[in-house]
């Protein structure tokens, strides 16, 4: 298992790095809208308002919209999985690194595949 993880290390680091860089850059705007502007009522959800189903669906179903949503969902999962793995190692879990790492990356993979299906469905 450890040999497999080492073989996958460049790919995992690529996804982890992009999770920090692109994931963080994209997440800030999303969290500002849903965490601040929406609860304060600055952004509306009514039929003709900014977050209306019709408007968001039109934006999200474009090729660029689908790519952005895929990056917004999948990349933070890889950042999260890899960082949690290293938290386990740092806190004495190195003896169980391989099963923990594989479980976490399996969760990130499943989430990424579900994200691909979600954007294809749009």
């Amino acid at each position: 298992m450890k040999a497999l993880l080492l073989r996958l290390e460049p790919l995992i680091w690529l996804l982890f790095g992009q999770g920090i860089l692109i994931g963080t850059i994209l997440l800030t705007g999303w969290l500002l809208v849903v965490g601040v502007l929406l609860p304060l009522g600055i952004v509306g959800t009514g039929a003709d308002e900014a977050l209306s189903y019709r408007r968001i669906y039109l934006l999200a179903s474009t090729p660029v919209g689908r790519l952005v949503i895929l990056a917004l969902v999948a990349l933070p999962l890889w950042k999260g999985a890899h960082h949690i793995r290293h938290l386990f190692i740092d806190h004495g879990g190195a003896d169980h690194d391989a099963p923990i790492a594989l479980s976490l990356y399996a969760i990130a993979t499943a989430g990424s595949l579900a994200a691909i299906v979600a954007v294809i469905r749009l």
Partner: protein
Amino acid sequence: MSRAAHPDAMSPAEPGRTRTAPPQKPASWPSHPRMRVYTLFGWTGVLYLLIGFGLLETAWSLGQGEVVWDAKLASFSHPAYVAFHLLCLVSVVFVAVRFFRLFPKSQPARIGPAKPPPRPVILAGLYAVWLGVTALFVAILSGAIFS
């Protein structure tokens, strides 16, 4: 109290050509402020994993139609969701500031004939992209553009 680091935690399957010392935890682990910030940086991974799955559910609800989408948006005004999103926002800003400070230092001195720009230029570029993309994202989602 955490256990000692496993000496083979990050070692390759076969020994490399260059001999290296086994990894060791610093004596000040985990109480030193630098270690605390490092650990906090690692803990943001939990929030990233949760927000990733939260976004997956949101994207999925968009594909399920107007009723599900409207219910999803309505749930975002629940105090628990607001608190979670604000915590994630703080965490994302913390990750950005820490990572952007680290990023210029991690660049190679030279890639073939090309040299990377000076570190302050890389740092300024990262902040410009971050703030620019965030402003664009907020403008799109709030209906200021593409309405």
